[in-house]
């Protein structure tokens, strides 16, 4: 049996379904040609696959009209499209205390320019937003609420539907970077206004392809303008989707890869209970503190650890040197989350399993954590 020691799936997932490389190769070696813009069979096949991928991705995310889903390079591109395209002048943008810099950096820029004021939603010590407290906030000056669905540091899953109900008519941007493919995402059922998606993490696609969902696309100005193969007689950007938000040649090879991932999505090799059981065991290892959701029902398949007496960098290095465990060390581009958790600026060792990990892999991980802690005399 080949053990899977790669536990950095919150950065990017590995392995991928075989069809991912297969579809990319098929596009690059056999099919070729553009998306739209031409009439021959090659172009029709490419355009058909891109649209099938869009339909499959929409279905996976609980979106009935795939026409409201546009391809982007990644979730960061989708988030920037919303934050730069929405009128936030002089208004508030509310965020969870667990946001990634994909949200915080564009917001900081807006704040520095005097275009928006960033506010933090009320939450518990693990960053879980309190919908009851949210209901008491005066959102009259709010332009947007941003929710990191699943923390990339602790795996905490926010109560999205309850938060949306609590914020009422204020538009909500859901960052599904860590959740899509790992935990259910129901965009329309939760009445989400915007959703940012990346293809290369839980959805198991290649890097360089993501998506943005917009319930009301007319509420946003596109971040990028250019050729779309439509209305080519005009300098005006088309008003219709997806063209309005898909200027320039898309990452067709990447979309083929995502199509492969979606059509051959594997069944999980572990259950949520397997994750919780592992977390409970690791929490009992002397000298190791696990950073996780306080409510087990809000735990996803990512968690962090810190150690009492050694730097997380040393711990992570020993995990790799002695046991081959590939983890991520540091702040994980989420300084706000670490300030919330009290782990700023030293950070954590992050363990991010994938859908392919089974109990045997978890047993091996536990053995490695236990023995590393022991050897470092924690």
């Amino acid at each position, binding site marked *: 049996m080949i053990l899977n020691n790669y536990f950095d799936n919150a950065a990017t997932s590995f392995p991928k379904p075989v069809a991912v490389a297969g579809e990319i190769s098929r596009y690059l070696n056999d099919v070729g040609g553009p998306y*739209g813009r031409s009439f021959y069979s090659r172009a029709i096949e490419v355009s058909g696959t891109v649209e099938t991928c869009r339909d499959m991705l929409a279905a996976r995310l609980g979106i009935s009209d795939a026409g409201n889903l546009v391809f982007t390079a990644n979730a960061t591109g989708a988030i920037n499209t919303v934050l730069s395209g929405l009128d936030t002048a002089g208004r508030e943008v509310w965020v969870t205390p667990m946001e990634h810099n994909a949200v915080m950096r564009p917001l900081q820029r807006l704040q520095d320019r005097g275009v928006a004021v960033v506010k933090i939603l009320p939450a518990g010590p693990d960053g879980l937003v309190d919908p009851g407290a949210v209901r008491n906030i005066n959102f009259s000056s709010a332009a947007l609420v941003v929710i990191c669905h699943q923390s990339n540091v602790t795996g905490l899953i926010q109560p999205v539907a309850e938060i949306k109900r609590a914020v009422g008519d204020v538009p909500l941007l859901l960052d599904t970077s860590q959740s899509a493919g790992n935990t259910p995402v129901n965009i329309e059922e939760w009445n989400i206004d915007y959703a940012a998606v990346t293809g290369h993490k839980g959805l198991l696609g290649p890097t360089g392809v993501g998506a943005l969902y917009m319930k009301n696309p007319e509420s946003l100005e596109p971040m990028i303008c250019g050729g779309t193969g439509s209305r080519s007689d005009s300098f005006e950007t*088309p008003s*219709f989707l997806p063209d309005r938000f898909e200027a320039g040649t898309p990452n067709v090879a990447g979309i083929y890869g995502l199509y492969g991932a979606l059509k051959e999505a594997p069944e999980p090799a572990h259950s949520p209970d397997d994750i919780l059981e592992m977390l409970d065991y690791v929490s009992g290892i002397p000298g190791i503190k696990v950073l996780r959701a306080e409510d087990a029902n809000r735990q996803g398949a990512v968690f962090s650890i810190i150690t009492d007496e050694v730097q997380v960098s040393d711990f992570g290095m020993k995990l790799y040197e002695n046991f081959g465990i590939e983890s991520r060390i540091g702040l994980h581009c989420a300084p706000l989350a670490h300030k919330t958790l009290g782990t700023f600026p030293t950070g954590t060792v992050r363990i991010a399993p994938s859908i392919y990990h089974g109990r045997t892999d978890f047993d091996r991980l536990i053995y490695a954590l236990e023995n590393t802690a022991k050897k470092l005399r924690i």
Partner: protein
Amino acid sequence: MKILVFESTRAVIKAEKLIRAAEIECRIIPVPRTVSPLCGMAVELDEGSLQKAAVLLEEKNIKTDVFDRGEVSL
């Protein structure tokens, strides 16, 4: 023959799939230059199939402009 022109590539692909699924013969052609400055695809079908196709497209809210082949030079 009739030429159906759509606003986006997605609309052309959805329309062709829908029309073919209803066993209506059609083919994708370049948008005739006399019809539109679009640089993409249009759908061509028999005049007798137009009504059935138009109903299908309307049901799916796919907007199209219809032209007679006689109006265009192919």
